[in-house]
């Protein structure tokens, strides 16, 4: 996804000048895409079709699957556990976006400055990117332990709370840890984008007497528009696949307070051995993920993704 996001689409468009349906003579041959496409078909399309097929079957992981038609679909779609998981997924998606988007935008713009202390800060700040989600999950679980965790070690009684065990606190705690993990990555995107903004724009604004807040609102934000779309797409589609962190930290608990759809899929499949039901949830996730990324792109991107630098 990172690579896809990094492609500069404006430049590509310039090559299609003559409107020919043949590949441009300067571009690489279509054949060069064959290995990648073959891998993609083998490891993405085929398993995906398998999951769709399995959603119409009853299978407990042993023996052979048995065709049951739409029974899995009607069972899963009427299950209150699924409804709760869907609601939680939406809440988590909105909450993680609302926390991460403004924070990483501001941090990214801050880090785009050329002062040396900012560079030192930025290096330290990217450390979370180096850790795997499972390691972060285990570390936070130990730090947040109410009896033997950070609060006890530092002697701060306020920290000794039931962070992951109280149904109403667990989800906000997860939003915090997820933000800790992913804000550095999104700030990196904003930092790069903010550095691309020509200095001359700010100089012109300064001459016109704009305040720094005014410059931020009228120059930085509009210039970052495409990055905001990209970063939001990654956040929102990504939040449909949060699994490892939550699995390690709460296992969907307490009760089902953090059982979001991806986790619901896993628990159905590999704890209850209901592969058919898990496949239904899987297909729903794929469909929702595709729709969301398409819509986001439609709303904020494509047609309006014209150059922001007309006349520069």
């Amino acid at each position, binding site marked *: 996804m990172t690579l896809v996001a990094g492609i500069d689409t404006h430049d590509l468009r310039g090559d299609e000048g003559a409107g020919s349906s043949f590949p441009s003579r300067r571009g690489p041959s279509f054949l060069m895409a064959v290995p990648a496409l073959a891998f993609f078909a083998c490891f993405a399309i085929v398993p995906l079709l398998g999951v769709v097929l399995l959603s119409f079957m009853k299978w407990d992981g*042993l023996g052979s699957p048995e065709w049951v038609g739409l029974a899995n679909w009607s069972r899963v779609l009427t299950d209150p556990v699924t409804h709760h998981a869907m609601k939680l997924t939406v809440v988590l998606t909105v909450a993680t976006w609302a926390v991460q988007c403004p924070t990483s935008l501001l941090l990214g713009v801050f880090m785009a400055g050329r002062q040396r202390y900012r560079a030192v800060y930025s290096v330290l700040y990217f450390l979370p990117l180096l850790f795997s989600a499972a390691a972060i999950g285990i570390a936070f679980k130990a730090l947040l332990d109410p009896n033997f965790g950070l609060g006890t070690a530092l002697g701060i009684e306020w920290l000794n709370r039931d962070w992951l065990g109280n149904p109403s606190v667990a989800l906000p705690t997860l939003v915090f840890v997820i933000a800790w993990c992913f804000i550095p990555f999104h700030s990196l995107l904003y930092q790069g984008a903010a550095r691309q903004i020509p200095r001359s724009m700010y100089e012109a604004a300064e001459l016109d007497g704009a305040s720094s807040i005014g410059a931020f609102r009228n120059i930085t934000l509009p210039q970052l528009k495409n990055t905001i779309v990209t970063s939001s797409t990654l956040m929102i589609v990504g939040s449909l696949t949060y699994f490892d962190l939550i699995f390690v930290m709460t296992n969907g608990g307490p009760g089902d307070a953090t059982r979001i759809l991806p986790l619901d899929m896993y628990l159905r499949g590999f704890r209850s051995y209901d592969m058919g039901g898990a496949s239904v949830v899987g297909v729903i996730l794929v469909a929702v993920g595709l729709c969301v990324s398409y819509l986001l792109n439609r709303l904020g991107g494509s047609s309006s993704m014209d150059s922001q630098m007309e006349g520069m």
Partner: protein
Amino acid sequence: MTHPNRTFLVGGIATICLVLGACGGNQPGGAGGGVNAWTLTGGSEATFRSSFEDWNSANSDEKITPEFFANDAYKEKIRTAVGSGNAPTLIYSWAGGALEDYVSNGDVVDLTDVTKPLQGRLVPSVLQTGTVGGKVYAVPNNNAQPIVLYTNNKVLSEAGIDSAPTTFDDLLDDVAKLKSAGVETPIALAGQSQWPELMWIEYLADRVGGPATFQAVIDGEPDAWSSPEMLQALGMIQQLVEAGAFGDKFGSVVADANADAALLHTGKAGMLLQGAWVYSSFLTDAPDFVSSGDLGFSTFPAVDGGEGDPTDTVGNPANFWSVSASASKEQQEIAIKYLNEALFDSSYVESLIQNGGVPVTTDAESQLATSEQAPFLSFAYDMIKNAPSFQLSWDQALPADQAQALLSNLSQVFLGQTSPEEFASAMDQAS
């Protein structure tokens, strides 16, 4: 103009498919001719390790390679491995519902006739757990694991309590005394792991209505979860939670890391209801706590007017080995030879006892009495021997989907999110 659209779309598909695809790919370990065994870390790990090492040095051309996994990870991995024909030669299990599934799909071999020499050494009631339809498909491989009420006697006596509670009312009184003595968590409970909560309902349902209360569930009787006995037992759990018996942070405590046992031996809790396997954790994590006599152990309290026998026990009779049907004839023969010759031989039994386990062999009693851990081991051995009913843990006795529904619904009762009646109707629908 459509290019960027498509790039995003393809990227989206790729990400999701990769994530979905990643869930399916469990690789079997140790294929390629050798005999392998999958088992768990912790518990009897030391005994398994030394037994396989001894076997391998004595039979260098018939080696068995053990691999050790964490509890939760193993339960998920083994199912996929067995289902895809990539099972290890020796399959570790808890018998119960999973074993029945293996047998009905022909995944494990019949051990009735080929393990006669081993069967002669075993306690019949434990061997019975490994039989399906009158045939032996799994043989026990370690110690009996009754659920025990552990106490920290120092914490109890500081709160003015002389002995472990013998009735449920005593238990409530003790909770109140511990609370007023400033113990935040009178009873340690690993709520995040969920399965330790099961032990409370298992014992309370038995003490209130006897073994018949849960047998009705197993037999699939309609509305078995809403029987008055079950509802009363659930109500007693609510009573305990409301009295603050488990403190207000039990939802974050994890049993896999022995955090509940740590609460007891660090004096932050007065009592702990856990399996006999926790005793070996006390031996490794807090040897002084055991040797100073601060660690107490007792049976679960009786309920006034309840029908259950106060000596009824719940827990796991043992863990089991099965032999995979997908292994070659040669591999199967080596595995069976190991079961007959090395399982529960004298050094195996000695090692189990040293680790604080009660071996499920008929001649264990005399060895237990002379062991360093005699008080606990004799207590646990008597508990099993005298129990009129030894109920297999509910999550093992029930089919997997019901067990999962049970764990999640029960944890909501402990959290005070659902009432006993709501729990019962949700469970009646799930079964």
